[in-house]
């Protein structure tokens, strides 16, 4: 390659790339490989897989397009980026679906081989957009990816279909060249993934290398880009998705509490991966029950909690609805239980693979009777780890169900994570009652939490269940005053968790004109919007709730220190509703429910309006 002239490098601080193709084109794999390599060389990054609910929709159709967007940079990267700088489109449908989002003047790489009559028709193109001037505002690169891949793999004992399946690695190789990333991570991954199919190892590796070489050899690309490593705090890092972080968090909670982990679960998008990850940790004594339905998932967990395990159940919105009665039972029996809701677009089946924040009210209020539970929410993929540990800690300490909210974006999105050492994580002390002297099932400690006396303990035989129980004694009671007392005790117990959680932090001044208040996965978007607004000379603050019920003690004070509280959410204003009714304050809302993360620009525009039409103060 010494005869090839070095091409120019342009240093950029942040790039947003979107890979798009057929569901069967391997775009998720391409995206996650690009992410892992990008993380490995030290960029900060944030990803957004965006795929259809159908596994293999008919090839070439628009609804079958699968996308993977990531943003990476040498500065903090808090979102997967609003609009891509670079779009890789593997067919006309992918182009059609994603073109309107590509930044003006952005880089567009298309697999020109796929632009035949049939595919153009499937994508509703009357004429070939590569042949007219409709793409003239972009830096268009037509690369015959299919035929170049076929050429590179000539002579290998593969069927045409198998050859075609390697084209995503060609595209990946080309992107690695363009953004100056090493091939080694992906080469290693291919070796491991196809260790029993040496011919696939060779084919995919060759395709990857051919893509890279193509960038090097051709005159098509005149510029390469360099994105320097980000200045991240010292430590050992890995790239982590929200679902994997959630799974690891509960594993850590199990180790730190000394209790075996029990997961009762029923597969549901986008939460199934948590069950998949946890079921692989069997050598930790983890028990997973893939139950017959969602209700069974939560009920098996309740049984395991009764028997003394760290019991959890994971689901998404429709499953949370099904688990409702079970959660009420855990409230009544005052057993520790964590319910993970990876929120998705609703109602009903809704948008199974898309993200939304519309289960907040269901989580806080959605049960029959007065059934208080603690509700907390993770704000980034890596935060899922810490909030899983926290959910376990609270559940075990207060003998209460805790709902941990994440969402489809956090679940599938990934970012670099500075891995904590086990000894940096807090211990979770657990005490089983063993002394029969003076024991009653509904005695309460200073936290109002009742003793955990597990079957197998001599002398503590007792009965609990869904019927109202007599205060202290735990026998069935229909006494009106007792019910009134127990309803209030259960509520008070959850309220008191407030003394055990950190205050709400404010990024920026703790008083002023505008506070942007968020919860959950909008964290990065709000953070970026606030940073941009400040760059434009505006003054504003950001606070992000991780504890939704109860909310931190200082929440009311924080909110009242600002003239305007602005709450952007991927729902119709559920946090806004709670804030208004809790604190009787007026709030401004931004509610966009597209099944996608909010865009920085949408929030920024509203900030500008709220602060007087964009004039800095």
């Amino acid at each position: 390659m010494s005869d090839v002239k070095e091409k120019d490098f342009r240093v950029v601080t942040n790039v947003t790339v979107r890979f798009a193709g057929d569901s069967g084109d391997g775009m998720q794999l391409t995206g996650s490989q690009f992410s892992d390599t990008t993380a490995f060389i030290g960029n900060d990054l944030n990803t957004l897989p965006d795929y259809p609910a159908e596994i293999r929709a008919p090839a070439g159709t628009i609804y079958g397009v699968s996308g993977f967007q990531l943003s990476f940079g040498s500065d903090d990267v808090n979102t997967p980026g609003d609009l891509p700088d670079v779009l890789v489109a593997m067919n006309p449908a992918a182009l059609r679906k994603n073109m309107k989002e590509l930044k003006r003047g952005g880089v567009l790489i298309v697999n020109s081989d796929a632009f035949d009559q049939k595919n153009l028709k499937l994508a509703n193109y009357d004429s070939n957009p590569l042949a007219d001037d409709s793409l003239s505002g972009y830096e268009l690169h037509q690369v015959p990816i299919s035929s170049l891949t076929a050429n590179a793999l000539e002579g290998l004992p593969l069927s045409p279909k198998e050859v075609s399946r390697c084209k995503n690695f060609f595209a990946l190789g080309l992107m690695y060249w363009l953004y100056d990333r090493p091939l080694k991570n992906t080469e290693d991954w291919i070796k491991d993934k196809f260790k029993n199919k040496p011919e696939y190892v060779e084919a995919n590796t060759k395709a990857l290398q051919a893509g890279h070489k193509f960038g090097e050899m051709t005159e098509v690309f005149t510029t390469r880009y360099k994105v320097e490593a980000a200045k991240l705090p010292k430590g050992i890092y890995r790239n982590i998705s929200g679902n994997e972080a959630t799974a690891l968090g509960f594993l850590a909670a199990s180790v730190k509490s000394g209790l075996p982990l029990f997961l009762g679960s029923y597969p549901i998008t986008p939460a199934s991966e948590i069950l998949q990850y946890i079921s692989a940790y069997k050598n930790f004594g983890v028990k997973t029950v893939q139950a017959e339905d969602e209700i069974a998932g939560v009920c098996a967990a309740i049984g395991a909690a009764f028997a003394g395990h760290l019991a959890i159940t994971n689901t998404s919105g429709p499953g949370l609805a099904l688990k409702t009665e079970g959660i009420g039972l855990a409230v009544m029996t005052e057993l520790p239980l964590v319910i993970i809701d990876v929120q998705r677009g609703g109602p009903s089946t809704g948008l199974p693979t898309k993200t939304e924040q519309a289960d907040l009210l269901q989580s806080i209020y959605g049960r029959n009777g007065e059934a208080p539970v603690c509700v907390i929410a993770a704000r980034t993929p890596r935060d899922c780890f810490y909030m899983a540990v926290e959910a376990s800690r609270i559940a075990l300490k207060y003998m209460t169900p805790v709902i941990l909210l994440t969402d489809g974006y956090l679940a599938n999105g990934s970012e670099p994570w500075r891995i904590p050492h086990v000894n940096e994580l807090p211990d979770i002390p657990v005490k089983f009652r063993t002394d029969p002297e003076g024991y009653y099932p509904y005695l309460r400690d200073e936290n109002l939490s009742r003793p955990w006396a597990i079957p197998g303990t001599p002398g503590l035989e007792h009965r609990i269940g869904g019927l109202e129980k007599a205060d202290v004694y735990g026998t069935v009671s229909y006494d009106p005053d007792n019910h009134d007392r127990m309803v209030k005790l259960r509520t008070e117990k959850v309220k008191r968790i407030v003394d055990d959680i950190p205050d709400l932090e404010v990024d920026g001044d703790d008083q002023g004109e505008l506070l942007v208040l968020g919860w959950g996965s909008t964290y990065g978007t709000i953070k970026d919007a606030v940073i941009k607004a400040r760059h434009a000379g505006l003054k504003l603050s950001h606070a992000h709730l991780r504890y939704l019920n109860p909310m931190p003690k200082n929440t009311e004070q924080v909110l009242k220190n600002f003239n305007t509280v602005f709450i952007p959410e991927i729902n119709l204003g559920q946090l806004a509703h709670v804030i208004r009714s809790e604190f009787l304050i007026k709030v401004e809302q931004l509610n966009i429910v597209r099944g996608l993360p909010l865009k920085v620009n949408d929030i920024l525009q509203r900030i500008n309006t709220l602060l007087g039409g964009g004039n800095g103060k």
Partner: protein
Amino acid sequence: MANNPEVVTQKYTAKDFSSDQDVRWCPGCGDYSILAQVQRTFPELVQTNKEKIVWVSGIGCSSRFPYYMNTYGFHGIHGRAAIIATGVKVANPDLSVWVATGDGDMLSIGGNHFIHACRKNVDLKILLFNNRIYGLTKGQYSPTSEKGKVTKTTPFGSVDYPFNPLSLALGSDATFVARSIDRNPKHMQEMIKRAGQHKGLALLEIFQNCNIFNDGAFELLTEKETKDDHVLVLEHGKPMVFGKNHDKGIKLDGAHPIVVDISNGKYSKDDLWVHDEFSDAPVHAMILAHLDDRPDMPSPVGVFRQYFKESYDEGIKTQINMIKQKKGEGDLEKVLFGANTWEVI
């Protein structure tokens, strides 16, 4: 195993299994008999460590059962007893987990959990109190009510066909399937014992009279004048004989059971179908489960089928131990730092 079998001391009495709660079933309810037979049987079945007994139930009259047993107990929600019990058993396989449930609880709202508990062979002992009516909601027909049943919700008679609980259990590959009757205490005690000794899922259906909303549902099987002609007591290795004068028997004609008279010399006991509890295939037990579909046939009680395979809870335990052996005890630090890491200096 006691070292000296002659001096096995009975540690518990029936009273030890009785809680301090007043029993609140209607006077005359068949549930009293079931509670009494369980409390009588348990001292023999549970000679030590009664803290290892857990009773789990769902909702309904039957499901108040755990409150009356001085053991660990969990009164669940409607239909969910089998799966709550599964959670308990998987979490701690050392426990002996019993389920008290009814025909509405287990076969209607809880049908799904029931068949899957059978399928998985969870080591649970399920006592199904079948009174063919919804009692606690005051008299609506249940999934085991006979077709045409007139109740508050079916003033013109029910249109749907009933479930056959034993057929359902057999069809779901339950490893122990038996039936008894509330009015036959000795038989029920024997069946409770057998269920308790079985390793794997045991279903014991108990015909239980609801004297308020479905009185007399099993009259023919319990009244002195009629019961011998309507009940077939199954005993392993014995020909199927019934009738007041032991004069009738069941003969198998291919897969087709027929009643024959063995008093007139045409047929003898040698011609009768000999009961085999341990039959490899569920076919014979299935024929027995459907025997009384025909009005001229007696209703069998006893153990229909018992066979052995690893229980679900045991399978989970074994797998965990195997993986621990193969991979070593889990090391959290290793898992956290295990995959594709890089260092920022």
